[in-house]
């Protein structure tokens, strides 16, 4: 199965996931190829790779989403493997097929599996056949609003409109009653068209205040498919995951076995290979329903790695090279929590906050893992998803993991751009979060009630401000110099000089 040339892997992505996959390559002794847009020439993922090829200008459509540019980069550097990461082309069956046709080993599932699971309606049908419990829903995209209303009568409101070709909360609309169907359908399909280039939308029964629990599955090309525990992903803002945990605080061994069995059945239904995630809605009565399958490595895979002791990125590469799964029976140990650090401003509705990171201090010590795609001085471009990286903490149990998260957040500093760090510090003060008592709408409800207020300075902070003011020489000069040092304009002049 392995091609003659020495394995060299191109990551068709950027930021922290590119670095994550490069680290797995280095552990396996595989050479790495980075790709970059003009906005990312000086980004950490380029500096970390053995090879690097420019894709095009900043816009994703002309760089990270350009299949032609990616395949040309693979050809130029004689890459033998290509890994899509997550987002961008990660769940694009066409891209997977194009890679295979170009003689590359696609590190991920087969195009067929991506296709099957890519369409919400097709995947639900496969799940129905495989006996995996699914949320009552339309099996084909809605032709018009009346079709949705008909379904609503049968399954009962509220309903949820979802983009057939999408995921991650985009193109979703809640429908409380029949009168809302028309407007909701229009909005949902236009958003779906925007994000996924496919306006098809379908309706399904909405389960109120469910938890989002997903199961990690791994399949090799020798027919072995295993489940590697679940992840709790209910803390979401507008359907976007904010904090993920492993294990889920409400899943015991029996429920874990049932969830895992369903997840493996789901994967087997599409002969799934590589890493994937089967997402379920878990109701309070421990009934669960198939939501969707992500045919990619998830952002939150590290919490599974910390608890189950596996390297999922390396596993994907081994599988792509034709090797059987590298692990036998696995035992979970301890509890892990991940915070997604976005360059978004919690005080301005989480608006993106691009700019230059003037100082970056990462936490370290026991139980702390940093998967971060930026460095001090990095410019956060406006063109892409604003995730800077992830903080992952691990401890023998959930209370210790929460205490370590509080400690790690106290060591974390990102200046120059606004981030979601203050939101995590705030969440740790909320009893419901500490008790793990939340559902997928919990964070949106609490944010609407004003969970996140900008703090007022306390006496100690005022004292620091006064001391700083009294010695501007020290504080501001280093600040001014660093800012001048790191200012894009100054670096531009240097780059200009060096081009």
């Amino acid at each position, binding site marked *: 199965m392995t091609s003659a040339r020495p394995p060299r892997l191109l990551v068709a992505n950027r930021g922290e996931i590119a670095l994550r996959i490069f680290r797995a390559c280095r552990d396996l002794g595989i050479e790495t190829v980075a790709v970059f847009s003009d906005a990312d020439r000086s980004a950490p993922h380029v500096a970390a790779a053995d090879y690097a090829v420019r894709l095009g200008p900043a816009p994703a459509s002309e760089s990270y989403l350009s299949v032609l540019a990616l395949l040309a980069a693979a050809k130029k550097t004689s890459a033998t493997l290509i890994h899509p990461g997550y987002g961008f082309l990660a769940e694009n069956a066409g891209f997977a097929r194009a890679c295979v046709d170009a003689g590359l080993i696609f590190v991920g599932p087969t195009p067929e599996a991506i296709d099957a699971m890519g369409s919400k309606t097709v995947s639900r049908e496969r799940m129905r056949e495989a006996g995996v419990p699914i949320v009552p829903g339309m099996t084909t995209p809605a032709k018009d609003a009346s079709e949705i209303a008909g379904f609503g009568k049968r399954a009962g409101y509220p309903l949820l409109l979802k983009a057939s070709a999408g995921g991650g909360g985009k193109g979703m609309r809640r429908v409380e009653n029949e009168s809302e169907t028309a407007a909701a359908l229009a909005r949902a399909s236009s958003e779906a068209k925007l994000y996924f280039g496919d306006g098809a939308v379908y309706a399904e029964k909405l389960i109120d205040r469910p938890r989002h629990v997903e199961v990690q599955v791994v399949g090799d090309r020798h027919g072995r498919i295993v489940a590697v525990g679940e992840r709790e992903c209910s803390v979401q803002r507008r359907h976007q995951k904010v904090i993920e945990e492993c294990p889920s605080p409400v899943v015991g061994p029996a429920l874990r076995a049932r969830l895992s069995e369903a997840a493996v059945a789901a994967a087997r239904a599409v002969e799934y290979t590589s890493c994937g995630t089967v997402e379920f809605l878990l109701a309070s009565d421990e009934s669960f329903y198939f939501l969707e399958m992500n045919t990619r490595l998830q952002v939150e895979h590290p919490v599974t790695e910390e608890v189950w002791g596996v390297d999922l990125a390396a596993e994907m590469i081994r599988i792509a090279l034709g090797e059987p799964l590298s692990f036998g029976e696995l035992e979970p140990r301890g509890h892990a929590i991940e915070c997604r650090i976005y360059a978004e401003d919690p005080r301005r509705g989480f608006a993106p906050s691009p700019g230059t990171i003037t100082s970056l201090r990462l936490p370290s010590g026991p139980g702390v893992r940093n998967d971060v795609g930026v460095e001090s001085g990095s410019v956060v471009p406006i063109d892409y998803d604003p995730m800077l990286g992830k903080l992952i903490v691990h401890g023998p149990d959930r209370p210790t993991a929460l205490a370590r998260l509080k400690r790690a957040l106290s060591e974390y500093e990102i200046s120059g751009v606004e981030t979601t760090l203050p939101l995590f510090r705030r969440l740790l003060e909320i009893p419901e979060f500490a008790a793990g008592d939340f559902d997928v709408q919990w964070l949106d409800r609490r944010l609407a009630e004003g969970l996140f207020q900008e703090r007022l300075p306390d006496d100690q902070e005022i004292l620091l401000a006064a001391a700083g003011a009294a010695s501007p020489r020290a*504080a*501001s000069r280093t600040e001014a110099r660093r800012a001048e040092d790191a200012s894009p304009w100054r670096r531009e002049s240097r780059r200009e000089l060096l081009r």
Partner: protein
Amino acid sequence: MSARRIRLRLDTRRGTEDVLVTSSPAGPLTVERSGKRVSVTVAALPDGRLSLLLEDGRQLCGRIAKDPAGRGVLVTTRAGAVRVAIEDALAHRLAAVADADDGTGEEVHALMPGRVLEVLAREGDEVIGGAVLLILEAMKMQNEIRATRAGRIGRVAVEPGQAVERGVLLVSITA
């Protein structure tokens, strides 16, 4: 060298407060706020943060930077970043410091228009880094203009009482 007193205006939700900071190059800073006096020794950490030691042994550490969004400063500590609206604090205090031509001494110029209150530097003096060279009054605030490094006073280009424009040379120091 005598102690310097600086008055800062602190804008809090309950209105403005005066904060009096008295600093002497050798001793600690004393900060007075609504009658309470706190004595603090300050150390600059390599990465630009400040570490304060209070008399009761408490240690505070944080980064103080101009608030890009508004007036006042952004204080970043273990608890995260918070805006502290200290008005007219940093704005005056900055006197641009130019490295002298051979990169060892420095030329100190006024960044703000103001009036020279007192001149401490005398040509030929040896000064340590941080020594107060002169007192410049701008916008009703006393501002200590200090040397950033040790050296010998070259030219003292201003005298007490003289009004100065932005950019004018105040003092030059050779290594």
